[in-house]
């Protein structure tokens, strides 16, 4: 009956086509592409350089009260280096590095991943409203491929942005950890891949039934910043009030950020790093499965 219906039997046909469709919308639109590059740089500049926490502890701007008898120049110098040492010790104990910019710039990576994956939830709603979703559903493409393409494209975008952040952070003066090895960068991409898989599955599952674009926007506004600030991205967890610590300690973004810091700027603590990977890995696996199962159910009404 069907003489020339060339149909591939592979389950993943169309996955790359759908992923590429999402990516093309991004890299073929120069303005959008440029903005995704500028955005992390801007945030990094604002949060990293403007919120220069290290400067708070800088003693050179503090006028010491005049003492009687006055300090000798030598004593003054000693005192100066004492306070200087104190500053870096405070920084070291609080942030595990003497450079707040390095601390924050790396936190930026998780922040960007969060933002980018949220848009995967929105694109589901758009596809539904514009009829593309139904169109795709009427073709033999696997339902899982429809969902996975969204997850994958958000993940690839985030990884690209992470690369930009790392490059820019280095240009702005990122201090690498003592035992940094260029191969660690691969580890960074690994952890970003995992967190993005998890997060975008989560946002897609939230929005899969939604028909209005307002829903994902509201969800984004509601959970975006709390999720970000209840993590160690900008500020160490042990300085937070107890209830916030409790949230930050289960927030996968904390573990992502910690992993990236261990890999780039800290003296790598391999036990912690392994735990970070395990935690984010399980988060990604569980949410991807939940996301796909839920989507599958709603796509097969």
């Amino acid at each position: 009956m069907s003489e020339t219906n060339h149909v591939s039997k592979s389950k993943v046909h169309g996955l790359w086509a759908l992923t590429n469709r999402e990516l093309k919308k991004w890299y073929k639109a120069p303005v959008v592409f440029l903005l995704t590059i500028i955005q992390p740089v801007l945030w990094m500049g604002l949060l990293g350089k403007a919120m220069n926490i290290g400067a708070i502890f800088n003693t050179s701007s503090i006028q010491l009260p005049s003492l009687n008898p006055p300090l000798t120049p030598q004593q003054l110098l000693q005192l100066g280096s004492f306070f200087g040492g104190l500053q870096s010790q405070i920084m070291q104990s609080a942030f595990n590095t003497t450079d707040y910019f390095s601390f924050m710039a790396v936190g930026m990576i998780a922040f960007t991943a969060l933002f980018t994956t949220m848009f995967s939830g929105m694109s589901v709603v758009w596809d539904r409203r514009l009829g593309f979703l139904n169109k795709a559903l009427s073709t033999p493409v696997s339902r899982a491929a429809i969902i996975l393409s969204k997850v994958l494209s958000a993940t690839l975008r985030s990884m690209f942005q992470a690369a930009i952040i790392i490059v820019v952070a280095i240009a702005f003066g990122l201090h690498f950890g003592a035992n940094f090895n260029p191969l660690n960068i691969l580890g960074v991409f690994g952890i970003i891949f995992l967190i993005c898989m998890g997060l975008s599955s989560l946002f897609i599952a939230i929005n899969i039934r939604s028909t209005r674009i307002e829903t994902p926007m509201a969800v984004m506004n509601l959970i975006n910043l709390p999720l970000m600030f209840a993590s160690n991205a900008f500020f160490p967890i042990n300085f937070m009030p107890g209830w916030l610590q409790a949230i930050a300690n289960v927030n996968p973004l904390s573990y992502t950020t910690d992993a990236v810091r261990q890999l780039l700027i800290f003296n790598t603590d391999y036990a912690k790093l392994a735990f970070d990977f395990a935690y984010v890995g399980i988060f990604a696996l569980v949410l991807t499965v939940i996301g796909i199962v839920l989507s599958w159910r709603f796509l097969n009404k």
Partner: protein
Amino acid sequence: MSENVIETEGLTKVFNKHLTAVDHVSFSVKQGEIFGFLGPNGAGKTTTINMLITILKPTEGKASVLGFDIAKQNVDVRNVIGVVPQEYTADEDLTGLENVLLCSDLYGIPRNVAKERAMELLKLIELTDFEDKKVETFSGGMRRRLELACGLINRPKVLFLDEPTLGLDVQTRTATWNYIRKLKKEYGMTLFMTTHYLEEADALCDRIAIIDHGKIVVVGTPEELKHSLGGDIITLSIKENSDVSELIRTVEHVKDVKNEDGSYRIKAEYGEVTAPFIIEALRRKGYTVTKLMLTEPTLNEVYLEYTGKSMRDTEESREAFRAQRITMRRARQ
């Protein structure tokens, strides 16, 4: 195999356990015909199509497309059908060719075959000059043709068209239908379509089904349907406020009278002869006829006969409404 390409039996879809959108619908579509599906908004047209193209699961009943069960063999169905949705689904940021190739990837068609087919299709719909232009620059008619190309990339045996000319101007509608006819001839498909434009349905469809409140009220060729009305339609109004349906019914050759808010819709044989008798009968009882209109049945009359004249102010899903609005807006670009 039977020559019926689509067969449904007691096909039913119930949403949220109590909203019956499609209610035990049974019909069949023959090989090679153009089958039109008409009905008011919310009558169940789109729900029926969505079940046939396997994106909705029926609550009850059975249907098959080319012998494949829509519920159990949905992937087989998807491989042999083409779908041209009501919406403009082509991606604005991609070019015409890229969009067609994207569709081919969804069917898993190898790239070399897909390219060849895409070029052939673009040539048939005369978009070859625009294959490298982004869709955002396309007019409504061009977008519609592009949707056709996407729906045909897998060489379907059955093509489903949901409101293929919604929002297009008359010239573009005519042209679009010429393309559809051309493609049908080229590929020898069976067409299943819904439309609101009854004159289009009349001119194009081999057979028509009218659906209302989720049920099929009548199926037949446009000629049969017009004939089934059993004569002409006389519409008249009287000055007085009383109901004169019974009185009109006593006139010879009058077959049916409906009072629709003071305007009477009379079905009568030999309308031009019967009308004067009706006026006379009314005048004798002291009523004054203020308006009278005689119409030979068109598909419009058939449609109104079976679905009633009252407007449907039913609550329509926001989703459907919004989709339609987007479609209209893009069509007018």
